[in-house]
């Protein structure tokens, strides 16, 4: 191996490490910064001369205590979990049968209809939130969590149908035919055969729908105004600010507590979501 080749390889490795460190640092920095702020005493946090990278005073749990004791944070977490659970149930109830019947539809219509449904996933809340706020008001759901329970499935169902169609397509039709010959009804074959095989697909839909509920902001902001009925994604940025006073320590603690569990869950199922996003553009 020539000296030049070795030098070149060394430079390439240094570049590799630099790229990784630079991007990881940049992308993860806001979360690192949340951890620091969440445990710093206020005097330390709000003294401009202090080095912000170190604890100039001992760390404190005051912000966490304030967050859990004197704000509606726990209530918001509860609201979000409840809405998440109901939306997941509605999504499964509607999307699983729909995806199954679309994959088993003869001819190309199933595929076409599936793509049509997938395209509605591209419709953003910012296009429909104004008329949707009237629809919600007319139905008498304004200011309650039921407003978002009604609307979120319009965002979760299209993508879920698309994801599940990918799963169901990989199950050979002969398997069901055999089961039906053995005396099961089509519905029985679906329930006893198709669903168990597709557990991982169904789990992906559960995680996808739940994370979407925690991430959505526009509809929740538009429909719900009372502090106690907020979802966590709106409650934290809007209601942990009093007038012009930002409770930065508690704000950052709240962001961490609310986003880390979601991040871990989503990370586990990432590859499957990506397969859905790429719309079959890789084989």
């Amino acid at each position, binding site marked *: 191996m020539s000296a030049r080749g070795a030098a070149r390889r060394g430079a390439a490795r240094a570049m590799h490490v630099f790229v990784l460190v630079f991007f990881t640092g940049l992308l*993860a920095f806001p979360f690192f910064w949340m951890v620091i702020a969440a445990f710093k005493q206020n005097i330390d946090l709000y003294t401009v001369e202090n080095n912000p990278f170190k604890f100039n005073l001992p760390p404190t749990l005051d912000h966490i205590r304030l967050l859990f004791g004197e704000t509606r944070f726990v209530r918001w977490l509860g609201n979000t979990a409840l809405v998440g659970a109901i939306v997941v149930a509605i999504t499964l109830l509607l999307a699983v049968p729909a995806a199954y019947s679309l994959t088993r539809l003869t001819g190309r219509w199933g595929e076409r209809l599936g793509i049509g449904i997938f395209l509605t996933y591209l419709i953003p809340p910012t*296009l429909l*939130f104004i008329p949707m706020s009237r629809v919600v008001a007319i139905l008498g759901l304004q200011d309650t969590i039921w407003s978002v329970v009604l609307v979120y499935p319009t965002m979760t169902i*299209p993508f879920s149908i698309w994801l599940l169609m990918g799963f169901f397509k990989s199950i050979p039709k002969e398997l069901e035919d055999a089961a039906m010959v053995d005396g099961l009804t089509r519905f029985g074959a679906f329930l006893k055969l198709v669903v168990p095989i597709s557990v991982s697909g169904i789990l992906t839909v559960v995680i996808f729908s739940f994370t979407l509920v925690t991430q959505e902001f526009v509809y929740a902001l538009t429909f719900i105004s009372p502090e106690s009925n907020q979802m966590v994604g709106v409650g934290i*940025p809007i209601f942990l600010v009093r007038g012009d006073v930002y409770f930065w320590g508690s704000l950052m603690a709240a962001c961490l507590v609310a986003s880390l569990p979601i991040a871990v869950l989503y990370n586990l199922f990432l590859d499957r979501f990506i397969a859905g996003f790429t719309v079959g553009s890789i084989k």
Partner: protein
Amino acid sequence: MFMPSVVFIALLVGIPFVLAVLYAFSDARIGGTSFHFVGFENFRSILHSPSFRKALQNSIVFTLCAQAIVIVCSNILAIALEKPFRGRGFVRFLILLPWVAPVSLGTIGWKWILDSIYSVITWVLVALHVYKPYSAPMWLGEPHLAMASVVLVHCWRLIPFSTVIMLAGRSAIPREIPEAAAIDGAGFWRTLFQINIPMMTPILSVAVLFGIIFTFTDMTVVYILTAGGPFDSTQTLPSLAFATGIAGSDLAAGAAISLFLVPVLVAVAYLMLRVAHRAEVV
């Protein structure tokens, strides 16, 4: 069996969409009972308003800048992440955080980083003697810096998403092709531009198309970071629609502003179908 889903979506997406169009041609207001059709009056007054023009321009600028930066960065990052190394799983988790954490919460983190007084960026720049104490600019308080901040946060949020899509695209390239190219003497850049990128075109366009939708129609980042300020300098179409239609109670004008998103959505949907078609799924 797919009818319940189709009916549910058709009702809850179709009706609001028709309403949006009706509102845009009417004089509807929150709390008001009058409802008259006024033709193109809303569109005429919107097109003449400077804040609308600024918002339209911002939406386009933010989307294009963010996409350009995201494509370059995510390509670099995907190459760096491709080969296995120790701790890759953990690095991947850290890199993905901006995408998987709720947007509104990540943006609040940036608001603290860019704070007018306690910004860590300001502290570092003062420590490096770039600025004297208390003379550093307010990152979110000056129009151009505020615009740059919005683009930065969009990039920060989209790079992870785009990177994983690029990774999926790279892993789909048959190994033999770049290997054969290497034997024929093609270097890193030549392999990148003449083999990898052309072979990844369909998946690259998927990443770009989703990225365009996520940036162009987003309101969360702007609303939390700057609320459209200072002086409407970071207002985008969605945030202006919210400020006008919900906060300002003028449903008609707000709905009309939202409708300007439609041409972009239609174009993206069309291109998405073209990509899917070329990959022979339809």
